[in-house]
Protein backbone atom coordinates (compact mmCIF):
# COMPACT_ATOMS: atom_id res chain seq x y z
CA UNK A 1 0.00 0.00 0.00
CA UNK A 2 1.20 3.52 -0.75
CA UNK A 3 -1.05 6.43 0.08
CA UNK A 4 -4.21 4.74 -1.19
CA UNK A 5 -7.84 5.57 -0.50
CA UNK A 6 -8.95 5.07 3.09
CA UNK A 7 -11.79 2.87 1.92
CA UNK A 8 -9.26 0.41 0.51
CA UNK A 9 -7.50 -0.08 3.85
CA UNK A 10 -8.05 -3.27 5.78
CA UNK A 11 -7.00 -4.57 9.15
CA UNK A 12 -3.93 -6.77 8.84
CA UNK A 13 -2.64 -4.86 5.80
CA UNK A 14 1.13 -4.36 5.83
CA UNK A 15 2.64 -0.87 5.66
CA UNK A 16 5.31 -0.19 3.01
CA UNK A 17 8.57 -1.53 4.41
CA UNK A 18 11.59 0.75 4.55
CA UNK A 19 15.19 -0.48 4.74
CA UNK A 20 18.10 1.82 5.54
CA UNK A 21 21.73 1.40 6.45
CA UNK A 22 22.98 3.80 9.08
CA UNK A 23 26.35 5.48 8.58
CA UNK A 24 28.35 7.66 10.93
CA UNK A 25 27.97 10.40 8.32
CA UNK A 26 24.17 10.20 8.67
CA UNK A 27 24.52 10.43 12.44
CA UNK A 28 26.85 13.43 12.18
CA UNK A 29 24.42 15.16 9.81
CA UNK A 30 21.55 14.42 12.16
CA UNK A 31 23.52 15.94 15.05
CA UNK A 32 23.89 19.12 13.01
CA UNK A 33 20.29 19.18 11.83
CA UNK A 34 18.84 18.54 15.29
CA UNK A 35 21.55 20.41 17.24
CA UNK A 36 21.93 17.28 19.40
CA UNK A 37 25.68 16.94 19.78
CA UNK A 38 25.62 14.43 22.64
CA UNK A 39 29.07 12.82 22.30
CA UNK A 40 27.71 9.28 22.54
CA UNK A 41 26.49 9.85 18.99
CA UNK A 42 29.50 11.51 17.42
CA UNK A 43 32.60 10.73 19.50
CA UNK A 44 33.80 7.12 19.26
CA UNK A 45 36.26 7.40 22.15
CA UNK A 46 33.72 9.02 24.45
CA UNK A 47 31.08 6.44 23.57
CA UNK A 48 33.46 3.59 24.43
CA UNK A 49 34.23 5.20 27.79
CA UNK A 50 30.53 5.09 28.64
CA UNK A 51 30.50 1.34 28.13
CA UNK A 52 29.09 1.28 24.62
CA UNK A 53 30.83 -0.57 21.81
CA UNK A 54 31.04 2.67 19.87
CA UNK A 55 28.80 5.50 18.80
CA UNK A 56 25.06 4.99 18.56
CA UNK A 57 22.46 6.69 16.40
CA UNK A 58 20.05 9.19 17.89
CA UNK A 59 16.81 7.38 18.73
CA UNK A 60 14.91 10.18 17.00
CA UNK A 61 16.87 9.55 13.80
CA UNK A 62 15.57 5.98 13.68
CA UNK A 63 12.08 7.17 14.63
CA UNK A 64 12.19 9.45 11.57
CA UNK A 65 12.29 6.26 9.47
CA UNK A 66 8.97 5.24 11.03
CA UNK A 67 7.47 8.62 10.20
CA UNK A 68 8.71 8.22 6.62
CA UNK A 69 6.98 4.85 6.38
CA UNK A 70 3.74 6.39 7.65
CA UNK A 71 4.04 9.25 5.15
CA UNK A 72 4.56 6.70 2.37
CA UNK A 73 1.45 4.87 3.53
CA UNK A 74 -0.86 7.80 4.18
CA UNK A 75 0.61 10.78 2.31
CA UNK A 76 0.12 14.28 3.74
CA UNK A 77 -2.66 13.06 6.02
CA UNK A 78 0.13 11.80 8.31
CA UNK A 79 1.47 15.35 8.77
CA UNK A 80 -1.77 16.66 10.27
CA UNK A 81 -3.28 13.66 12.00
CA UNK A 82 -0.49 11.26 12.87
CA UNK A 83 0.72 10.19 16.26
CA UNK A 84 3.41 7.88 17.55
CA UNK A 85 3.92 6.11 20.85
CA UNK A 86 7.13 4.10 20.89
CA UNK A 87 9.75 2.58 23.11
CA UNK A 88 13.44 2.62 22.30
CA UNK A 89 14.43 -0.96 23.03
CA UNK A 90 18.07 -1.00 21.94
CA UNK A 91 20.57 1.37 20.35
CA UNK A 92 21.19 1.35 16.61
CA UNK A 93 24.80 1.57 15.48
CA UNK A 94 26.61 2.75 12.36
CA UNK A 95 26.84 -0.05 9.82
CA UNK A 96 23.57 -1.63 10.88
CA UNK A 97 20.75 -2.06 8.40
CA UNK A 98 17.39 -1.18 9.86
CA UNK A 99 14.16 -2.58 8.53
CA UNK A 100 11.06 -0.58 9.38
CA UNK A 101 7.80 -2.44 9.15
CA UNK A 102 4.26 -2.21 10.37
CA UNK A 103 0.70 -3.27 9.82
CA UNK A 104 -2.78 -1.95 10.34
CA UNK A 105 -4.14 -3.47 13.53
CA UNK A 106 -7.51 -1.76 13.80
CA UNK A 107 -9.71 0.65 11.86
CA UNK A 108 -12.46 2.41 13.78
CA UNK A 109 -14.96 5.16 13.10
CA UNK A 110 -15.42 7.34 16.15
CA UNK A 111 -17.32 10.62 16.34
CA UNK A 112 -17.08 11.30 12.64
CA UNK A 113 -13.42 10.37 12.41
CA UNK A 114 -11.65 7.36 10.98
CA UNK A 115 -8.93 6.14 13.32
CA UNK A 116 -6.31 3.81 11.88
CA UNK A 117 -4.19 2.01 14.43
CA UNK A 118 -0.90 0.46 13.34
CA UNK A 119 1.86 -1.51 14.98
CA UNK A 120 5.38 -0.42 14.04
CA UNK A 121 8.76 -2.08 14.43
CA UNK A 122 12.36 -1.18 13.64
CA UNK A 123 14.75 -4.12 13.74
CA UNK A 124 18.37 -4.59 12.74
CA UNK A 125 19.72 -7.31 10.48
CA UNK A 126 20.14 -9.64 13.49
CA UNK A 127 16.44 -9.31 14.21
CA UNK A 128 17.05 -7.26 17.36
CA UNK A 129 14.23 -4.85 18.10
CA UNK A 130 15.37 -1.23 18.07
CA UNK A 131 11.97 0.52 18.28
CA UNK A 132 8.55 -0.94 18.95
CA UNK A 133 5.25 0.79 19.35
CA UNK A 134 2.12 2.14 17.80
CA UNK A 135 1.27 4.70 15.18
CA UNK A 136 -2.21 6.13 14.86
CA UNK A 137 -3.69 8.18 12.04
CA UNK A 138 -6.85 10.16 12.72
CA UNK A 139 -8.73 11.34 9.64
CA UNK A 140 -11.80 13.59 9.89
CA UNK A 141 -14.73 12.51 7.72
CA UNK A 142 -15.11 14.74 4.69
Amino acid at each position, binding site marked *: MTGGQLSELKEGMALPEII*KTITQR*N*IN*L*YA*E*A*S*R*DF*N*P*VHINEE*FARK*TGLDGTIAH*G*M*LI*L*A*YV*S*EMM*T*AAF*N*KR*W*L*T*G*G*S*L*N*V*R*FKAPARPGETITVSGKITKIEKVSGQTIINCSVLCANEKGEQIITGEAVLTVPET
Partner: protein
Amino acid sequence: MAETYSQLEAGYEFPPGNFVLDASRVSLFLEAVQDTSYPYRESRLIPPMAVAALAMSTLSNTISLPPGSIHVSQELGFVAAVSQDDTLTSYAKISRAQKRGKLHLISVDINVRNQDQQTVLTGKTSFILPQPDGDK
Protein backbone atom coordinates in the same frame (compact mmCIF):
# COMPACT_ATOMS: atom_id res chain seq x y z
CA MET B 1 16.93 27.54 38.81
CA ALA B 2 17.92 23.88 38.66
CA GLU B 3 21.36 23.16 37.20
CA THR B 4 20.97 19.50 36.37
CA TYR B 5 18.14 17.28 35.24
CA SER B 6 18.36 15.27 38.45
CA GLN B 7 17.40 18.42 40.37
CA LEU B 8 14.27 18.96 38.32
CA GLU B 9 10.88 18.26 39.81
CA ALA B 10 7.49 17.62 38.25
CA GLY B 11 5.91 20.89 37.26
CA TYR B 12 9.16 22.58 36.28
CA GLU B 13 8.64 24.60 33.10
CA PHE B 14 11.51 25.13 30.70
CA PRO B 15 11.91 28.60 29.24
CA PRO B 16 10.10 28.66 25.85
CA GLY B 17 12.44 28.16 22.92
CA ASN B 18 11.98 29.75 19.50
CA PHE B 19 13.21 28.23 16.28
CA VAL B 20 12.73 28.42 12.52
CA LEU B 21 13.34 25.60 10.08
CA ASP B 22 14.66 27.13 6.90
CA ALA B 23 15.31 25.33 3.60
CA SER B 24 18.93 24.53 4.42
CA ARG B 25 18.11 22.90 7.77
CA VAL B 26 15.28 20.90 6.22
CA SER B 27 17.63 19.74 3.50
CA LEU B 28 20.23 18.75 6.11
CA PHE B 29 17.61 16.82 8.07
CA LEU B 30 16.35 14.98 4.99
CA GLU B 31 19.89 14.03 4.02
CA ALA B 32 20.60 12.78 7.54
CA VAL B 33 17.55 10.53 7.61
CA GLN B 34 17.84 9.59 3.90
CA ASP B 35 14.27 10.69 3.24
CA THR B 36 13.28 11.45 -0.35
CA SER B 37 9.51 11.58 0.29
CA TYR B 38 7.72 13.75 -2.20
CA PRO B 39 5.78 15.96 0.25
CA TYR B 40 9.01 17.67 1.29
CA ARG B 41 10.70 17.74 -2.10
CA GLU B 42 7.75 19.27 -3.91
CA SER B 43 6.55 21.75 -1.33
CA ARG B 44 7.69 23.90 1.56
CA LEU B 45 6.29 21.42 4.08
CA ILE B 46 8.58 20.38 6.89
CA PRO B 47 8.95 16.79 8.09
CA PRO B 48 7.23 16.62 11.47
CA MET B 49 10.17 14.70 12.90
CA ALA B 50 12.40 17.69 12.13
CA VAL B 51 10.07 19.86 14.19
CA ALA B 52 10.19 17.30 17.00
CA ALA B 53 13.99 17.15 16.90
CA LEU B 54 14.39 20.92 17.09
CA ALA B 55 11.79 21.19 19.85
CA MET B 56 13.80 18.73 21.91
CA SER B 57 17.01 20.62 21.26
CA THR B 58 15.51 23.70 22.89
CA LEU B 59 15.42 21.71 26.14
CA SER B 60 19.16 21.18 26.07
CA ASN B 61 19.66 24.91 25.66
CA THR B 62 18.53 25.15 29.27
CA ILE B 63 20.01 22.02 30.81
CA SER B 64 22.04 19.37 29.04
CA LEU B 65 21.23 15.73 29.57
CA PRO B 66 24.13 14.07 31.37
CA PRO B 67 26.21 11.52 29.44
CA GLY B 68 24.77 8.08 29.95
CA SER B 69 21.16 9.25 29.76
CA ILE B 70 18.90 6.78 27.97
CA HIS B 71 15.99 7.92 25.82
CA VAL B 72 13.46 5.24 26.69
CA SER B 73 10.23 6.30 25.08
CA GLN B 74 8.64 8.93 22.88
CA GLU B 75 5.12 10.05 22.17
CA LEU B 76 4.40 12.51 19.36
CA GLY B 77 1.27 14.00 17.89
CA PHE B 78 1.36 15.86 14.59
CA VAL B 79 -1.49 18.33 14.81
CA ALA B 80 -0.92 20.78 11.97
CA ALA B 81 1.39 21.05 9.00
CA VAL B 82 4.48 23.25 9.34
CA SER B 83 6.02 25.16 6.46
CA GLN B 84 9.52 26.42 5.97
CA ASP B 85 10.17 29.72 7.74
CA ASP B 86 7.23 29.33 10.15
CA THR B 87 8.32 30.71 13.52
CA LEU B 88 7.85 28.00 16.11
CA THR B 89 7.93 28.15 19.87
CA SER B 90 8.46 25.08 21.99
CA TYR B 91 6.97 24.88 25.49
CA ALA B 92 8.12 22.08 27.78
CA LYS B 93 7.27 20.97 31.28
CA ILE B 94 8.45 18.13 33.49
CA SER B 95 5.45 15.86 33.91
CA ARG B 96 7.20 13.15 35.90
CA ALA B 97 10.37 12.99 37.96
CA GLN B 98 10.74 9.79 39.90
CA LYS B 99 13.54 7.95 41.62
CA ARG B 100 13.18 4.20 41.65
CA GLY B 101 16.17 2.68 43.36
CA LYS B 102 19.17 3.77 41.36
CA LEU B 103 17.06 4.90 38.43
CA HIS B 104 15.95 8.45 37.90
CA LEU B 105 13.08 8.76 35.44
CA ILE B 106 12.18 12.04 33.82
CA SER B 107 9.28 12.70 31.45
CA VAL B 108 8.90 16.00 29.65
CA ASP B 109 5.70 17.16 27.95
CA ILE B 110 6.29 19.25 24.85
CA ASN B 111 3.94 21.54 22.97
CA VAL B 112 5.05 23.40 19.84
CA ARG B 113 3.05 26.35 18.53
CA ASN B 114 3.40 28.39 15.37
CA GLN B 115 3.38 32.16 14.98
CA ASP B 116 -0.45 32.11 15.12
CA GLN B 117 -0.31 30.34 18.51
CA GLN B 118 -1.74 27.21 16.89
CA THR B 119 -0.42 23.95 18.32
CA VAL B 120 1.40 22.06 15.58
CA LEU B 121 3.00 19.27 17.59
CA THR B 122 2.63 17.66 21.00
CA GLY B 123 4.85 15.11 22.64
CA LYS B 124 6.14 13.38 25.70
CA THR B 125 9.74 12.31 25.95
CA SER B 126 11.05 10.06 28.72
CA PHE B 127 14.61 9.51 29.87
CA ILE B 128 16.42 7.44 32.45
CA LEU B 129 19.23 9.49 33.93
CA PRO B 130 22.45 8.08 35.30
CA GLN B 131 22.88 8.17 39.04
CA PRO B 132 24.42 11.51 40.05
CA ASP B 133 27.90 11.19 41.59
CA GLY B 134 26.70 12.50 44.94
CA ASP B 135 24.11 9.73 45.23
CA LYS B 136 26.54 6.84 44.77
